[in-house]
Every structure is written in structure tokens, then in C-alpha cells.
């Protein structure tokens, strides 16, 4: 699904942060959301390409899609039920 079709509830700007801070910021932001909400995460740490999907899988959240915009990796995550 293209990003333009998904409305992010909240955006986390983790650009410039190194491991593990992108997922730390993502986890903090996700706690404030309700199931079904979509979080957009922007990161420049190359490790986040592996880290964010793994984090989503282990915490019961859903990675809807990710793509690269220049130096920035953009992730769209949907908060899972009962998380």
C-alpha cells in the first residue's frame, strides 16, 4: 500500500539517532497510541532497517511498509490489538 493512502496518527523523527534510540523513541510513541493507530518513523541509522521490523514483530505491532527517501528510512507501523 502506498504511504499516501495511509494516514499516520503520529510521526517520530529519529533521524540522526543511533541504535537503539530509534526503537526506544518508537516504543515510547507507540505506548501513547490506541490499537489501529499508525505511527510513522523516520530514521537515518541503517540498522533501523532490520531493527524496526524486528521490534514490530516482537511487540505485536504491524509493519505496514517501509521505504527509503534519500538518506532517510521511513516506516509505517500499525499498533496491534492488546499491545
Amino acid at each position, binding site marked *: 500500500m502506498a504511504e499516501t493512502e495511509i494516514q499516520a496518527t503520529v510521526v517520530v523523527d529519529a533521524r540522526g*539517532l*543511533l*541504535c*537503539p*534510540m530509534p*526503537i*526506544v523513541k*518508537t*516504543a515510547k510513541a507507540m505506548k501513547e497510541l490506541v490499537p489501529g493507530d499508525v505511527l510513522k518513523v523516520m530514521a537515518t541509522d541503517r540498522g533501523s532497517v532490520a*531493527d524496526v521490523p524486528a*521490534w514490530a514483530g*516482537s*511487540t*505485536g505491532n504491524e509493519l505496514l511498509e517501509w521505504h527509503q527517501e534519500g538518506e532517510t528510512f521511513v516506516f509505517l507501523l500499525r499498533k496491534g490489538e*492488546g*499491545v
Partner: protein
Amino acid sequence: MAETQKLVIMVTHGPDEPELASIPFIMAGGALASDVEVVMGFQADACLLMKKGVAETVAAAGYTVLGELLPTIQELGGKLLVCSPCCQRRGLTEADLVDGAEIVAAGRFVAEITSATNTLTY
């Protein structure tokens, strides 16, 4: 959600080895962000990382600095346990340590490790 998992991370490297001192905090941050309970155990020179003002001086190129990692671990509820004889040898008392750091002995470390899902040692 599955039952909460618990990770014990034993740290033995101090400020003189910033990379090996930083990686355990990175793992702790990743675990806490993933809703895994974290207990960090500091032994030998790693005790010095728990001395007030020291974490802020530890930085390894390419890694998040300890001055940012430590408060993150504290904020996310990671437990900080520091080895009693290791502190004694270095003249450290609880008053010298960062907020929340607790001086404990072998029995407590063993209890934490045996009740953990996994243990990492650095």
C-alpha cells in the same frame, strides 16, 4: 501479549573500554523498548560506569553515548545492580552511585540470573 521476558546483562568492562562498556547499554535499551524486563549487573571495572558523572564521559565512535543511554535505561525501568566487593575494592559506596543503582552481592545476582529468560555477559 506473551508473558514478560527478563534479560540479565552482566557488564565487566569499564570506562577504559568504551565500546565494550556501551554495547550492554544498547542491548538493554533495545530490550526495554521491546517490553523485555532488564536487569543490568555491573562487576569489576564496570562498577565505575555507575559512579555519578562517569557515564557522561564514556563515548565510543559510532555508538550512542553512554550519557544518553544510561538515563534512557533508568527511565524505561531497567534495574542497575552493582557488585559489592567490586565497589569495596574501588572505594565506592551507594552514595557515589547514580540514582537507582543498588549494591548487591552474589546471591542477588544468582537469583536474578536463574529467574531470567536469558543472560548476556560482556
